[in-house]
């Protein structure tokens, strides 16, 4: 593995001496924050501006990719498999080496901030996989979501139970025992517990049934109506673009088409290439 002797995998599978479950995948170098610079001039609330970068010392996956979202909006990133949708999301969240370009949040340049400091700045992120603490109960998951808060979290928790009533019934159950759709609700709920200023969802409907998917979309719209901007990666391009205020079609790490959800749905090129006619 990239010639780093510390990361030699030999003998590492012996679980009687090593535990590999739940290990961090974020590069340690990204866990340290640099400085935050104020930005002069107008910029969207959250924007990843002409980002180029990749994982570790590997090749670039994103090429001058730009993604932005404003309050009250839902921005959706769609594109074929391997287009770098999730990667773009991770880049905005600081889990990727962004070699050129910058990330701006609320008038500040946060390109050099670590992911955990971005959470403190008000970004909520729901990763695509392993997005809940499986061995903790639903309530503990929500509590951990609010870890950075020092004020009373009961109100927020009630709001989340109101948004996802099923979670209230299962509050004392281990989150790992829930169904796929319920897990996604826990994951979104956990991210909302910080009362984020912007919510980023990486394929929230992956692996759930169509009925559950519709319900999740409804909930996401409900969250957006409260004014929280939502940046979302979606596999179900058509359905996602229908609810999107802004859509980004990525192809091979580049912005291929950008427009409002309706424009993209109407665009014959986009229809032909990504929406199946």
């Amino acid at each position, binding site marked *: 593995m990239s010639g*780093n002797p*510390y*990361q*030699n*995998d*030999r*003998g*590492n599978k*012996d*679980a*009687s*001496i*090593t*535990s*590999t*479950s*739940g*290990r*961090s*995948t*974020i*590069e*340690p170098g990204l*866990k340290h924050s640099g400085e935050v610079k104020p930005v002069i001039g107008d910029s969207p609330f959250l924007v990843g501006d002409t980002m180029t970068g990749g994982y570790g010392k590997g090749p670039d996956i994103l090429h001058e990719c730009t993604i932005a979202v404003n309050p009250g909006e839902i921005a959706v990133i769609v594109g074929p498999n391997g287009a770098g949708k999730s990667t773009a999301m991770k880049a905005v969240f600081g889990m990727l080496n962004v070699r050129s370009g910058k990330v701006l949040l609320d008038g500040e340049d946060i390109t050099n901030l670590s*992911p*955990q400091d971005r*959470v*403190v700045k008000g970004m909520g*992120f729901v*990763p695509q996989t*392993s*997005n*809940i*603490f*499986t*061995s*903790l109960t639903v309530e*503990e998951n929500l*509590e*951990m*979501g609010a*870890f*950075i808060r020092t004020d009373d979290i009961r109100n927020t928790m009630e709001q989340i139970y109101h948004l996802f009533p099923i979670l209230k019934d299962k509050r004392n159950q281990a989150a790992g025992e829930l169904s796929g759709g319920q897990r996604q609700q826990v994951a979104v709920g*956990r991210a909302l517990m*910080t009362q984020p200023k912007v919510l980023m969802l990486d394929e929230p409907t992956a692996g759930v049934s169509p009925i559950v998917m519709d319900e999740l979309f409804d909930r996401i719209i409900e969250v957006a109506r409260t004014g929280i901007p939502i940046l979302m990666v979606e596999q179900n391009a058509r359905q996602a673009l229908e609810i999107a205020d802004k859509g980004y079609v990525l192809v091979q790490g580049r912005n291929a088409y950008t427009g409002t959800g309706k424009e993209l749905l109407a665009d014959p090129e986009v229809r032909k290439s990504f929406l199946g006619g």
Partner: protein
Amino acid sequence: MDLLNALVALTNYVMIPAVAYGSQLALGALGVTMIYAVLRFSNFAHGDTMAFGTMVTILVTWWMQSMGINLGPLPTALLALPFGILGCMALLLFTDRVVYRFYREQKAKPVIFVMVSLGVMFMMNGLVRFIIGPGDQRFSDGERFIVSARDFKAMTGLREGLAFKTSQGITIITAVVVVAALFWFLNRTRTGKSMRAYSDNEDLALLSGINPERVVMYTWMIVAGLATIAGVLYGLDKSFKPFTYFQLLLPIFAAAIVGGLGNPIGAIAGGFVIAFSEVSITYAWKKILRYLMPENLEPDGLVQLLSTDYKFAVSFVILLIVLLFKPTGLFKGKSV
């Protein structure tokens, strides 16, 4: 009457020692399991961590004894224990700072950490021997027995005596209190939950704003406490010798793995399984069988399955059996 005598002998020679030894192993195994769950490697330096904490406690105990401070019937070491824990915490945090943190920064694989802990083990081993010497140290004082064999015989008129040592009583009570406190901490407090969250999913813990370095620090501190308590209890019950503590590593690991690595309840259960097997396999059953069997069937030999010199073989065999047939342990742990 014979049955009663057999029962008393069984309690005296097997049950009480095994429960006390089991509690000590359980506390040791809890430390190993915590490191495995949170830091994701098996800490081979655990036995020597116990030795270091105990050594500090002993030194403070001696100082207290020389100053005339004591706890009356209870051993002075209990008073010195908090100092031992603090000393051990300081050592572990120092080790983490100068050794383990470097490897965390490199994102080293867990197996590298295991090897690193071996090196740390040798360093601590040398440090302890350098300071207190390789010999046997006794540091228990106060009342030796809660119930002595002679008193028991006089009280009940039975032929068999039952001795209950103060150190055994303290061991059992302390173990119960410590385990209860640990479980309360892990399940009820914010910090405890954040440790479980970190153990479950490091990245998500980071995304929730849990500071990894903080979690690691708390883990080492708790482990220092558990290791020192386990070490001091063992030392009070038997005696302190650095090499013995190094050897304790095997039964402790066996206990953690038998119970299921990474599972605290498993560590406790595993401790008792190992202790009971070890004590009952190395015990000479002749005495008890003499009471239970008809006179003409009385055994000739000692009916000791294994000499006490080979007691470590018991842990080894149990370890092998568990890893072959139920690698995740009795309670669902992580080892496969």
